[in-house]
């Protein structure tokens, strides 16, 4: 069985395992969802009313029956009903997901637009002061937590320019693209900065290796310009590790950047899970975490495929 087939076979098994882990984990959280939902008013419920509510949300059965029912419904496209929102979990997730996806894509764009040219520049100026400068900035960038950077950006904007990022009401890209971009650009830069630092380091390292390869020397000896050698011959190969790194980062961002969403008051998936855990909204936590895990696994699989496409020498089955 080659590597890819193996990955595809184990994919549903791993997903099933994830679903079981999250199903059990959320039930280990002290307290129950009805009390979490109603707060102090839960004390006013009669036992019959409580039982009726538990039956409505399907949490009156033993855990394995609840799990089986949840799996059954899952295969029929039903992730259950959120006790917090009183709506189908899938609707709530799909409402939040576009923001998370947009934030992930924008921060990837920021990181790649900054990181790749910076890495190439540093590699082509190896051991020169400008290379040292890029390396120092990249190392500091990699060591700066995104929430520290987020606060610094807000501080500079508010103290230096008297402007505060728009927070509170979020406008989707379909409603007003310009307002949406003005709301998303700062979180995207915040998230993209640390990733740009990693991309810089990786692309510099890959370029340094590749610039020493025979085919690059051959291209140079045939009279190819320095620009052509770097951008046409060396860079496509140097991008292979960048693709892997981008895949890992993208899958991480799809999980929702909880802290950055919190700082910039963005209603993304990360905050949704955080609030759902605090509210003990079983169905919402299960559904969201499974949705995120599924995305993470799909992205990782796609990265492996892209890896093989970019470098035909790689035979996945022979790894």
């Amino acid at each position: 069985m080659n590597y890819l087939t193996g990955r595809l076979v184990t994919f549903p098994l791993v997903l099933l395992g994830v679903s079981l882990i999250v199903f059990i984990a959320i039930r280990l959280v002290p307290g129950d969802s009805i009390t979490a939902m109603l707060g102090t008013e839960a004390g006013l419920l009669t036992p019959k009313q409580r039982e009726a509510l538990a039956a409505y949300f399907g949490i009156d059965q033993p855990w394995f029956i609840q799990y089986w029912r949840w799996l059954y419904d899952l295969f029929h496209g039903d992730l259950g009903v959120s006790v917090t929102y009183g709506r189908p979990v899938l609707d709530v997730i799909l409402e939040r997901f576009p923001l998370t996806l947009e934030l992930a894509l924008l921060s990837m764009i920021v990181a790649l637009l900054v990181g790749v040219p910076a890495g190439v520049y540093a590699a082509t100026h190896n051991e020169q002061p400008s290379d040292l400068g890029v390396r120092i900035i990249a190392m500091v960038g990699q060591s700066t937590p995104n929430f520290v950077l987020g606060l610094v950006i807000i501080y500079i904007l508010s103290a230096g320019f008297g402007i505060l990022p728009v927070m509170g009401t979020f406008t989707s890209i379909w409603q007003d693209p310009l307002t949406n971009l003005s709301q998303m650009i700062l979180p995207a830069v915040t998230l993209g900065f640390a990733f740009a630092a990693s991309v810089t380091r990786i692309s510099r390292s890959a370029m340094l290796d590749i610039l020493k390869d025979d085919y690059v020397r051959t291209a140079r000896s045939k009279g190819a310009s320095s620009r052509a050698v770097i951008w046409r011959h060396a860079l496509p190969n140097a991008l292979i590790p960048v693709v892997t790194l981008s895949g890992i980062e993208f899958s991480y961002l799809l999980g929702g950047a909880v802290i950055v969403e919190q700082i910039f008051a963005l209603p993304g998936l990360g905050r949704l899970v955080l609030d759902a855990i605090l509210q003990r909204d079983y169905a919402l936590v299960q559904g969201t975490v499974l949705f995120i895990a599924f995305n993470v696994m799909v992205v990782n699989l796609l990265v492996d495929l892209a890896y093989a496409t970019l470098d035909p020498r790689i035979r996945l089955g022979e790894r």
Partner: protein
Amino acid sequence: MEQVRAIARHTSGRIGGAIVLVCLLAAALGALGWTPHDPLMQYRLDRLHAPNGTYWMGTDLFGRDVASRLMVGIGQSFTVAFFSVAFATLTGTVLGLAAAWLGRRWDGTLMRLMDMLMAFPAILLALLIIAIIGPGLWTSVIAIAVIYTPIFTRVVRGPALSLKEREFVDAARTFGSSQSYILSRHLLLNLVAPLTVQVTLALAWALLTEAGLSFLGLGTQPPTPSLGLMLSDSRNLMETAPWLMVFPGLAIMISILGFNLLGDALRDILDPKMRRSLA
């Protein structure tokens, strides 16, 4: 001792090592109570004082000395980072060695279990664990350890699989060496280099995760100082008292930078193939 000398000769190693040592010293002084002021004492008449001769890093909204709280906070962060990485290293090494040595079903089962844990975004897994056990310093240790155990398992399993097939292991078997001797003497000793690099880099990630959890209010609980919480508290006061944001932010960044530099240096020293390119 030779490795310490090698680190001292390496520029990144020297800087990283010095940063880590300074942080450790501050943490040790904080733990011993040798701080400029009592970190919990509220000097109410001196609320929101800018840095000065008495309060080197200023005071917070309750009149507490930021410098003293920072020293204790660094200690809290380092405690979580060290214990969580130690736990993850130990568990990951045992699981990785077991997967590689026992092979077949054990290997398959253990690695699929690790795949499941790795399918969770790290912060979500931590949130779930914290929701179950309740927030606190030791919960952060457990949460971060669980996040990093699969990484260490993978780091150990790969090289262990190839070491298992080497001639010197066959020779040891032929001479009748016990399993435990082969595992500890021939496999584990050869895994020290990749593990050392991974441990140093994991310490940087652990500091980052701990600060993130504390920032969300899910790590060390007040009134005990923690860097993430200090930073989070500074949000509403950043215009009137920017020092409340600057010093904890710098402390988190510099301590992570220290471990990153040290990790890079160790990778250069222990893995000469990487030396030129990543330095």
